[in-house]
């Protein structure tokens, strides 16, 4: 029960933040940048958030945005599952674990795909083309889903 809570604390909280930065709901990074900027004393929180959002919408290619929407969706699904588990209890623990870790694992794999296909990271991954990255993504997701379906019984 609380082991899971710990898992939640550590793992999917960044997803929330990340999706926040990419979707209009934007809770955490806005606050974060707000505190930092207020320390600087220059801009208000909203201005920073709006600037970041504008920067994001302009600079990000369409495909990456699509990936981001999918990641946001995964975060929502994961949070919903967790909230349900907190409310109802974790009796078939393997079912909860497989559902939850499916979202976490898929999120992580998608984040990897996003990183690898990002043009800015070309130098880091010189041996991996975007097509190869996508094939890797499919391979990883297939394994993930096999294990999840097997584990959910």
């Amino acid at each position, binding site marked *: *029960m*609380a*082991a*899971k809570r*710990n*898992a939640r*604390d*550590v*793992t*999917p*909280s*960044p*997803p929330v*933040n*990340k999706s926040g*930065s990419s979707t209009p709901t934007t809770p955490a*990074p806005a606050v*974060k*940048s707000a*505190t*930092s*900027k207020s*320390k*600087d004393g220059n801009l208000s929180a909203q201005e*920073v958030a709006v600037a*970041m959002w504008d*920067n*994001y919408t302009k600079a990000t290619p369409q495909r990456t945005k699509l990936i981001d929407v999918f990641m946001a969706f995964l975060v929502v699904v994961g949070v919903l599952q967790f909230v349900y588990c907190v409310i109802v209890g974790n009796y078939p*623990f*393997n079912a909860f*674990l*497989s559902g939850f*870790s499916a979202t*976490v*694992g898929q999120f*992580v*794999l998608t*984040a*990897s*795909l996003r*990183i*690898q296909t990002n043009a*800015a*990271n070309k130098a*880091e*991954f010189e*041996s*991996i083309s975007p097509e190869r*990255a996508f*094939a*890797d*993504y499919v*391979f*990883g997701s297939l*394994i*993930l889903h096999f*294990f*999840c379906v*097997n*584990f959910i019984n």
Partner: protein
Amino acid sequence: MTVATENSYLKGAKGRNTRGLLRLVILCTIAAAAVSSRLFSVIRFESIIHEFDPWFNFRATKYLVANGFYDFWDWFDDRTWHPLGRVTGGTLYPGLMVTSGAIYHALKALTLPVDIRNICVLLAPAFSGLTAFATYLFTNEMSTTPSAGLLAAIFMGIAPGYISRSVAGSYDNEAIAIFLLVFTFYLWIKAIKLGSAFWGALCALFYGYMVSAWGGYVFITNLIPLHVFVLVCMGRFSSRVYVSYCTWYALGTLASMQIPFVGFLPIRSSEHMSALGVFGLLQLIGFVEFVRSGVPSKQFQTLLRGFVALVFSIALGGLVLLTVSGVIAPWTGRFYSLWDTGYAKIHIPIIASVSEHQPTAWPAFFFDLNLLIWLFPAGVYLCFLKLSDEQVFVVVYSILASYFSGVMVRLMLTLTPIVCVTAAMVLSTILETYLSMKSPKSDAESVAIEAAASKKNVPTKGGLRSMRNPVVGIYTIVSKSTVVGAMTLYLLVFVLHCTWVTSNAYSSPSVVLASKLPDGSQHIIDDYREAYQWLRQNTKEDAKIMSWWDYGYQIGGMADRPTLVDNNTWNNTHIATVGKAMSSSEEVSYPIMRQHEVDYVLVVFGGLLGYSGDDINKFLWMVRIAEGIWPEEVKERDFFTPRGEYKVDHEATDTMKNSLMYKMSYYNYNGLFPPGQAQDRVRGAKLPDVGPVLNSIEEAYTSENWIIRIYKVKDLDNVGREHGAAASFERGNKKKKAAKKRGPKVLRVE
């Protein structure tokens, strides 16, 4: 040696083919050497399973082959832990059995029907060849020189530290686990170098296989996070690290949870929390890096650093809190005793009683890893010199594994791969330096050859002296050949040492005891199988055998009879029951044995032959384990003489002389010797003239050299008397003893 491939005529496109061919031939030779050096025991004795644990693996494999996979997965074994039984499918690592079962069926499909026993015996040598190949791949990732991989492969192939656990017939989990360990590390290095999700997923798959094979997977699941954590602390976080680690963790954890024995442990137990923590940390860092790339502000970055530190400490605090409050299981005793080395001896005597769980002595390192052990620190130093991501892994692995191998003898096994790799790196560097006959393109060349070592700025004609680059280094053939010759000599000695150690120390089956007669011919003492065979043929199919837990697997495997306890020590109380029955007097033991439906009791006695691993020498552990449960009924102090000595002769205490183990071991032993000269050759003690008397059990079988003695538990007396009274009546003693009170019923039988 393989640096010979670097000769000048082996360059170019044709040279590449030649080198590839040489490489292939060398690897095949290494695999052959690795396999053949493990066959000593098969050739000398016969193709049988050796130690204690492998007998259970063998039995489980036979069950798998006979009944299919699904039955094996749900196997409830009612022939061990007699009243309790064992849910075998959920309490073993199935990787080993499934592997050999798959090989069996594959060979059968190829119309090569091989007996399952031979597959089990020869599985470890076959996999050691694969281990050598995996080490080759792993080292090639570490080092740029082409020879390091081949050197590491041959080291790994014949190093005694690994051979000790993988000779033919040692059908233990480590047989395939070391291959999987090295191969998983290879895939991990590959993944972190390329930043590829594909290699990360492959690494996770092999990690899952490793989890299914050996409990030592905990080592991997702590080492890889530690590697990543060290990388992060060194400021080497990159998106490659993120991609490889997150892919590995997400898939690998799910894969490991598929094994029933592991189950929810990756979520709940402390050993796995470092992996989870590093996973969370990487998410945070990845997010911070993402934001940082969007917002260019120095203050912002520092604030984010603070944010990362804060979240990390909060997570750590939460983890500690959860552990303390008991939500996450604390470290298991076996694992915990690695940190607190005095823990096991005080709290869990059953862990301390295993000889493999003792600290390692210095000679063991030199014995197991001859020249590798002194090349090992140099290799770690080399890794420090050019510290890239994968070299950090070598350093982390070396430090961790050296510590663990110092604490526990059997963990020498996990140290051996990294020692082979680092030693190969050093040796290949040395050979590369001294084997290249190239001298620098300098005018000093002709002079340098005939001059002594380390020549600089030899005066020649042409050019200003200050304009020439001085040539520093060792360039003479003599010095180079001296160094290379010394290294070759060391390598040859290493091969000799490995072969000698393997032949003499690690290739003896514990089932048959070999001894040499004065004329040099071999005499084999085969009492174990003799007695087990007697049990198999002359007892009922479901006769329960009580023995100390060391022999549980062998009785189950060879005699095929149900046992009370065995080497899988999952129920300490049950073992303590057997310990109590062995260490109490007959009046106490008999009810215990009746309650557990024991038909036969088996003891190992080496007093006649001088076989020191017998039950009298293990007796104190039985007493200690029983005392842990019934401190007021079994007391270790009672088994010592007033001066605190452990004696079996006439000075032995009454508790000792009345204990069932003593009586069973020395029953009728006096009759072998002339009167008054009974001698115990292990303890070196002269035994009392009057041997012990047994009332409630009777001797059923004693093997040729008296190593194994089997006793039958008598039925209840027809007239309802106590066995002691009945026996004394039989003997004609007139005075009738007062009725003894029955042994205390402390045991709960479910």
